[in-house]
């Protein structure tokens, strides 16, 4: 296969996944959340159980007026949604779907790149918050920065634990080295990673920066139309990314019966199962207060992640 064709297929596949998977998760969120609350959710768009609701939402967002507040820092204000969305695209490039190089871009330092790129989220939050010239936006942005910086630490420590266990930073390499008993050995790290990941994508119960009942909509307050849609899309791509990373690092990615043929299916199933859990948590739990949020991070997640590192190192030396 010539290089250009190979590249085109990979890029098209990643773009398709980037655009379709978040819509699936979004629709699932509409429906799952509705049924968990005794409702039925969207029923009209697309005639069959509202399957086209998000398409209709997209059309609506495109039609809306694109407003930039007069006092806003225009260039930064307009750039922020792209900065929020783009890192996730790069992360999706590196998530392996199946064995035998079924990944858009296999990197030796994949995990390193992923964690570095996820950190850009803070910049997008601060950009949108500061440039909006709105007090609610600024409050949300400052909360967001404190939260993202804080939860970066347990996220990285938990990921470092599994990298230590596997002895590689390559994401396919980690899945390759994964064994079922790691579920117990790396269990605490998996929990820490998943919870910190939830906080990284600012999903309820960690949505203090958005907190629609107190901050209007946090750093997204001033955004309308397509730019707002980009922020929303970033949230749902974020679900896919966090679910995907947790799958790859801790749940064994493509491991399962007939992994050679159906590896990609196992990966996708695990991603969707984790996405369901993310939605489920949103429905079940109220938003954390700001001090509870920081307390959970620094007093529970970070110590657990550090203890996990010690455990991982100990088991590695003993084996």
């Amino acid at each position: 296969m010539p290089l250009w064709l190979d590249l085109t297929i990979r890029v098209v596949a990643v773009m398709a996944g980037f655009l379709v998977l978040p819509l699936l998760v979004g629709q699932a969120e509409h429906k799952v959340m509705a049924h968990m609350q005794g409702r039925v959710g969207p029923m009209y768009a697309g005639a069959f159980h509202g399957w086209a609701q998000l398409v209709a939402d997209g059309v609506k967002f495109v039609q809306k007026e694109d407003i930039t507040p007069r006092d806003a820092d225009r260039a930064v204000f307009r750039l922020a949604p792209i900065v929020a969305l783009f890192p996730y695209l790069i992360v999706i490039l590196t998530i392996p779907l199946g064995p035998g190089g079924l990944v858009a871009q296999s990197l030796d330092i994949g995990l390193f790149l992923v964690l570095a790129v996820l950190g850009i989220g803070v910049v997008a939050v601060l950009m949108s918050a500061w440039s909006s010239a709105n007090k609610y936006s600024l409050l949300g942005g400052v909360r967001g920065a404190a939260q993202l910086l804080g939860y970066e630490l347990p996220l990285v420590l938990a990921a470092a634990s599994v990298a230590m266990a596997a002895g590689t930073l390559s994401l396919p390499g980690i899945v390759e080295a994964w064994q079922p008993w790691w579920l117990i050995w790396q269990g605490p790290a998996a929990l820490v990673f998943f919870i910190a990941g939830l906080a990284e994508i600012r999903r309820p119960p960690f949505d203090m920066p958005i907190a629609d009942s107190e901050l209007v909509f946090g750093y997204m307050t001033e955004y309308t139309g397509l730019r707002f849609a980009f922020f929303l899309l970033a949230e749902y791509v974020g679900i896919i990314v966090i679910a995907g990373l947790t799958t790859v690092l801790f749940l064994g990615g493509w491991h399962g019966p007939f992994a050679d043929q159906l590896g990609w299916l196992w990966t996708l199933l695990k991603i969707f199962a984790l996405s369901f859990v993310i939605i489920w948590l949103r429905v079940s739990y109220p938003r954390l207060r700001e001090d509870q949020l920081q307390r959970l991070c620094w007093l529970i997640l970070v110590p657990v992640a550090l203890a996990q590192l010690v455990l991982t190192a100990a088991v590695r030396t003993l084996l």
Partner: protein
Amino acid sequence: MSENGDRIAPGKGLLDGLAVTFKTMTRRSTTQQYPDVEPDLPPRSRGVIALLEENCTVCMLCARECPDWCIYIDSHKEEVVVPGAARARQRNVLDRFDIDFSLCMYCGICIEVCPFDALHWTPEFEYAETDVLSLLHDKDRLGEWMRTVPPPPAHDVLGEPSKEEATATRKAAGPGAATAAKTARPANVRATRPQSEPSPPEPGQ
């Protein structure tokens, strides 16, 4: 989690929360598909008030008791010559009977107070208007709602027998027979619907 001091296993509250939402998801949702499916309204639903014009004697009780004063009644007197009577009788003729549903608070006092069952609840509720003035229903419009008045609910088999039945039994038993009807309230306080009157048809017919 454990701030309430209860000695429960840590995290049990979190798991309970997850269980609640998951159980709800497995049950049928309670949403009513209203515009597509007609709602199953409970009996005696208070939708709109219907007027049976023939029963109205223009006693004005309803208009006077209405807390919102949203009933407007006009009438005039007519002479009726009864053959064989010493002099002509007078009767009231209803000219105007309007209920302003933009003021009505659906308390139902007018219906309760009507001595001759001229007013009835009907469960119809789809009479929203884009103009508030159109919510003033005149007596023709109120009369049209009579088609939607449901038949009165069946008598409770375990309850006291109705006044009519009790009176009929007492009369059949002969004078002086002790029955419940004798000790009951006088029948002229609030006349119940006579058995001979045909019950209005079912709504939607």
